[in-house]
Structures are given as C-alpha cells and as structure tokens.
C-alpha cells in the first residue's frame, strides 16, 4: 500500500538521507545558526577588505635607492616601474652599496637598484617579488640590454630581468602568515563546533531514549552516517561561503590576498576542513555515544579535541617564527593534528605544495581507520544505559568486537 517498495540498498540510502535532512533542517531553522553564519562571513569580509582599504589610503611613493649611476638617468625607469605596479615610485641617490643596504634594512627604502647588475630587496617572498621591485627588475634589465648590446631591441620582446637579491633569507610574506592564522582559526572553529554538535545530538538521542525507536527501523551505521553527513554539509556550506566571501571581497577591494600565496593558504584550509571534518566526525559521534546524560558530552569530547587543541596552540610559534621545528612538521603529517598543523606550515612557507597533498591523503586514509573504530564504539554504546562508559573500556570492547 503506502509503504514504498525498493531494494534494501535504496532504503538504506533513503533512510540515511532522511536522517541527514532532519539534522540540516533542525539547525538551519535556528536563529543561532543564522547569526553565527552571518558573523563569520562579515568577519571574513572585514579581514580581507580593511587592510586593502587602509593600505591604499596610506600609499606613500616607494623609495628606490640607486647606487653607482646617475639617478636622473634611471629615474624615468623607476617612475614607470611604480606606475606599472599601480602606485608611485621615486628614485633616491645612495652614496654607497653599504649605505643603501642599511637604508633597506631600516625600511627607508623599499628596493635598491644597482643599474646593469641587480635589484636588492630586504627579503624575497616565497613565490618571487611583486610590485615595483619586480617591474623595476624587468625595465632595468631591458634598458641594460638595449644600452649594451647593439641590435638588442629585437630581443626585448623576450623579456630580460635583472636578478633580484634579498638581504635576508627567503620567507613567506606577512599577508600569507596572517591568512594562515585566520584559516587555522576557522578550521579549528568549524571542526570543533560542528563536531560538538554531532556529539551533543547523539547524546540527546541516547539520553532521551529516542534512539531505541530509531534503531527499530534504522541501522546504527545509517543513523551515524546520516548525522555526520547532514551536519557535515552544513559545515561545508559555511566553509564554502567563507571562501566565496574571501575571494569576492578580495577582488572587489583590490586586495593582494587573492593573488599568490594567500589564496593557496585558503584553498589548503578548505581542503583540510573537509578531510579534518571527515576524520573527526565519527570520533565525536563515538564520544557522544558514551554518555548517559547530555551534560556529560563536554567531558567525553575532550580527549577527541585534544590533538587539535595542541596543534592550534602551537601554531602561533610557527606563524611568528622563521622555520617550524621538527615536532611541528611531524604534527603536520599525523591525521589527528594535520587539519590544523598543515595549513599553518604551508602558510609559513615551511612545506611545499606536494607535502600538503601527501598530508591530506594520509589524513583521508586515517579517516577510514577512525571511522571503523568509531562506528563500532558507537554501535556498542548507543543502547547501553547506566553510567558513562570510559574511553578505554569502549575502545577495548570495540577492538574485541572486530571480526578476525
């Protein structure tokens, strides 16, 4: 009659989706969810737009030191380089290379031109220089070519640049580090906030005993997957809209955050929100299934959150220093800490892209392992009434329940 027919697999999918749908509707319809989403999006927009607006207002001309040449002869090059970079640049005569480097270190100059030889900057950012110094290197390189090699004008179209030398070791630019900090804060907030919601929701189902009615028609795995899927889609939606706001606001405000390294950091953060959530969602579910009262949830999820808390707390030492220590590099590859640690390492310029990819793959593989253990803990504990179940006991029982 009205009961739909279909294969068991169809029913399993349908049931899982029904569970997910309930989780989504339940939350999207609350005022708290809407307010928090709005606050997060506004915060991202402000973080992108404000620095760009402030920077454009206080745009004093870049001062380019010139060593060992007639300043008047190259000043047109400097001016043109500034114009090409969308700002202004003026040439300043420096008596010696040493004096020029001192001025560069103190910040009075933004670059030094040794015509025909090289450009010197304080520090070459990862990914190469940009702005007036880069343009200057190109223009000055051309001018050298044209002046010294007869008929070289034909070769100009190929582009010739002077080498750019940094006084200090190469490092990630500040904008990338700040973006990295903001990214790990968001990764950390999303995983722990939505993870806690999983644990709270399961704690509620268990303590209200509705789970027994549910399990009379839904398998524990369907209930678990539906729940983490529904809440996960919400987390993903929030993350995606934050990235969208970041990109849109960045282009609208002309922020340099949407070019180069910072954008890469945001993309890495997005990847690790997905794999990090996947790794942690089942662990939070298992933690939620151990309680008998919903108020116990906060204490059972603490062990789950600990690795993220450690990686998050230590992230500041990496972002504010030059070069991460070996310990933090190891954290970047361990699935429990990678979701926070790897975007930090990447933002600080301590790891190349391929290592980020390797870490993401390791984390995804760890997800499978975690899901197996957690699903067993969940299935073992969800119907058990009585006092809170200890973590060790739950893991032991889950292991003994593993098929040979």
């Amino acid at each position, binding site marked *: *009659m*009205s*009961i*739909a027919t279909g294969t*068991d697999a169809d*029913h399993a999918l*349908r*049931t899982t989706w*029904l569970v997910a749908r*309930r989780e989504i509707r*339940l939350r999207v319809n609350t005022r708290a969810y809407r307010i928090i989403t709005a606050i997060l999006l506004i915060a991202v927009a402000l973080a992108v737009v404000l620095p760009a607006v402030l920077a454009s207002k206080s745009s004093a001309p870049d001062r380019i030191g010139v060593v060992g040449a007639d300043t008047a002869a190259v000043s047109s090059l400097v001016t043109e380089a500034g114009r090409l970079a969308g700002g202004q640049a003026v040439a300043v005569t420096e008596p010696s290379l040493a004096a020029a480097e001192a001025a560069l270190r103190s910040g009075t100059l933004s670059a030094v031109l040794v015509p025909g030889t090289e450009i010197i900057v304080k520090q070459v950012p990862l990914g190469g220089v940009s702005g007036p110094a880069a343009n200057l290197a190109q223009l000055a390189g051309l001018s050298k070519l044209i002046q010294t090699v007869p008929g070289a004008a034909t070769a100009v179209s190929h582009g010739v640049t002077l080498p750019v030398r940094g006084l200090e070791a190469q490092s990630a630019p500040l904008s990338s580090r700040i973006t990295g900090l903001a990214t790990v804060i968001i990764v950390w907030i999303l995983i722990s906030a939505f993870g806690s919601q999983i644990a709270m929701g399961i704690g*509620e*189902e268990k303590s*209200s*005993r*509705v*789970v*027994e*009615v*549910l*399990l*009379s*028609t*839904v*398998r524990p795995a369907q209930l678990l997957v539906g729940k983490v899927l529904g809440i996960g889609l919400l987390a993903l939606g929030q993350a995606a809209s934050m990235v969208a706001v970041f990109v849109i606001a960045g282009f609208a405000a002309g922020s340099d955050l949407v070019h180069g390294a910072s954008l890469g950091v945001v993309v890495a953060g997005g990847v690790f929100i997905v794999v990090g959530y996947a790794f942690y969602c089942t662990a939070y579910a298992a933690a939620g299934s151990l309680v008998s009262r919903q108020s116990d949830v906060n204490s059972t999820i603490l062990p789950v959150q600990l690795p993220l808390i450690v990686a998050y707390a230590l992230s500041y030492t990496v972002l504010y220093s030059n070069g991460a220590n070996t310990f933090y590099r190891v954290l970047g590859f361990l699935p429990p800490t990678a979701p926070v640690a790897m975007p930090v390492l990447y933002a600080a310029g301590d790891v190349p892209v391929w290592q980020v990819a390797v870490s993401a793959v390791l984390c995804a593989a760890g997800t499978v392992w975690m899901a197996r253990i957690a699903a067993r803990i969940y299935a073992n504990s969800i*119907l*058990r*009434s*009585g*006092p809170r179940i200890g973590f060790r006991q739950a893991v032991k029982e889950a292991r003994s329940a593993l098929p040979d």
Partner: protein
Amino acid sequence: MTSLDLELDGLRRQYGSVTALDGLTFGVPAGQVFGFLGPNGAGKTTTMRAVFGVTALDAGEIRWRGRPADAAARRTFGYMPEERGLYPAMELLDQVDYFARLHGMDGPTATRAARHWIDRLGLSGRERSRIDALSHGNQQRAQLAVALVHDPQLLVLDEPFSGLDPGGIDDMSAILAERAAAGVTVLFSSHQLDLVEGLCEAVAIIHHGRLVVTGAVADLRRGDRPLLAVRVTDDRAAGWSAAVGPSVGTVDAVRADGTAEISLTSTADSQVVLDLARAAGPLEHFAFEDRPLSEVFRQATGASVGQAEAEHAASARTAEATTGAGR
C-alpha cells in the same frame, strides 16, 4: 488453529554472566492481541528488542510469516519501547511525520498519516507543540502515534500500560483491540499478569528467559484441574472439605469467608463435592472459577510473580557488584 504470524524459535542471549534468554520459543497467531507476560527480568524486553534487531541474538531465529524477519519485514512493524523516547525539542507533527518516512512512506502520505493519528489519539491542535511541552499522558499518546503511523502489520509494545491512569488504560486497550480487529497482530508485554487477562486472546508467560506456558487465555485459566469454589453457611473454616478425598481433588486454600478452593482431578465428578457440602449444611456458593494468570504462573513455576521479581532484583544487584557495570 490460526496461522502463526510471528515465530520465535530457540532465542538465546547472554549478557556477561546473566542469561537473558535461554532457548525461548513461542508463536503469535495472526490478528490477535497477544500478551507477553512474565515477572520483571524474565527477558521480555530483550525478546522485543531482538524482534527489531536492536539486540543481537547469540542463537535462535525470529520468523515473520514463515520467513526470517529482515529489514524489509521490520519496516512493517511498529514498536513502542519500554523506555519511552522521542526528540524532546522536535514538534509533534514533524516527529510523527519523520518516523513515518523512516518506515518508507513518501512525503505526502507520511504527513497525511501523521495528521490522522495525531487526530485519532486526541492530540489535534498540538501539532506544532514541542514534545517536551506536552503533558506526560500526551507524550505517551505521541509515542503510540509514532508506533502506529506507518500502519504496521505487527505492533510490538513493551509495557504499554505502565504509567497510565485508569482512563489511559481503557484508551490503550481499545486501540489495541481495534488494531487487532483491523487484522494487525498485536504483541505486548506486561509484568502485571492479571491487569491484562481480559484484553488478550492468548498469552505466553516466560520466566528466566524460558517459556513457562502459552495458549488461549480461557484454556489456561480453566486449566486441566478445574477450580471449584464452595461455601457452606456458618462453616468459616470449611471443615466439611476434609472429607474431599485425593481421588476427587485437593483443597488448595480456604478464603476468609469460608469458601474452599478445590482443584478437581481431571476425572472427578463435581457432584461428589456438591453432595459432601450439602450434607454439611445449607449451601451458600457453588461455582467453577477461572484462575487468575498469576495463579497459573505460580502453579507452573512454584513461585509467585512477586517472589520471582525479588529474586531477579537480588541477582541483578549481585551481577552489578561483580562486573561493576549496569547492563
């Protein structure tokens, strides 16, 4: 004999050192109200959970209409667990609708059915109330609506009468009888054996995870040794009954008003007892009586329901003390 809809065959379940089910076997006829009775701790809840696959069995099989009960069969079952539970913060209509969908109903059908049962159970007007805003009695009704909303072929209710006031008991009884009349097989448990004897056509009584006795209520209460209640005027001690010989029957008890309860042997002639009583004085009362189900239980196990429950409570305390964990 009517065909068996639900068959439980050799169910076994062990929790640590506690044996919850010990080879339990019985069948539930189609379209009847069937009472599943026994003292607390006899294994009723474990059995009902096993019907839904909520509890795994160590051994044994549960068959529905001749085939092992699988997920598809279970979607046509309705369940009201002993530990009542609904989502506290979810609105009534959404909740009933959600469970209808989980049982495979499509959206519009689910909503229609949810409204029907909310109405039928006297909850109209509360569709948008959160469950935790409903009174205790209305929460029980909501729970029943969840069990009934998908029009189940088998209705399993664990202690449906516990916590109900007399009016609620009448309402619940009426709904169970009505469902059975509509062709639904109704299985419900109770540890209050006598409360439900008027409602069920047949019962199974279990103890220590084993079947004690099963059959039609009328047959069980009559028994193979009919109970005769006889009272002679002014004989408060029923002294006359000493003359009843073992070939006729045994005097089980003498009530305060002097009524002797005599179990007749299967071959005895009740007229022999009548003659003995009339010889002793003017006869005040002479009737066959049905035994209460609690008496049927006592005769089958040698202990009263109260004793069985006290024994279970004591063993549960011991098990908890040795394992350090509740079930």
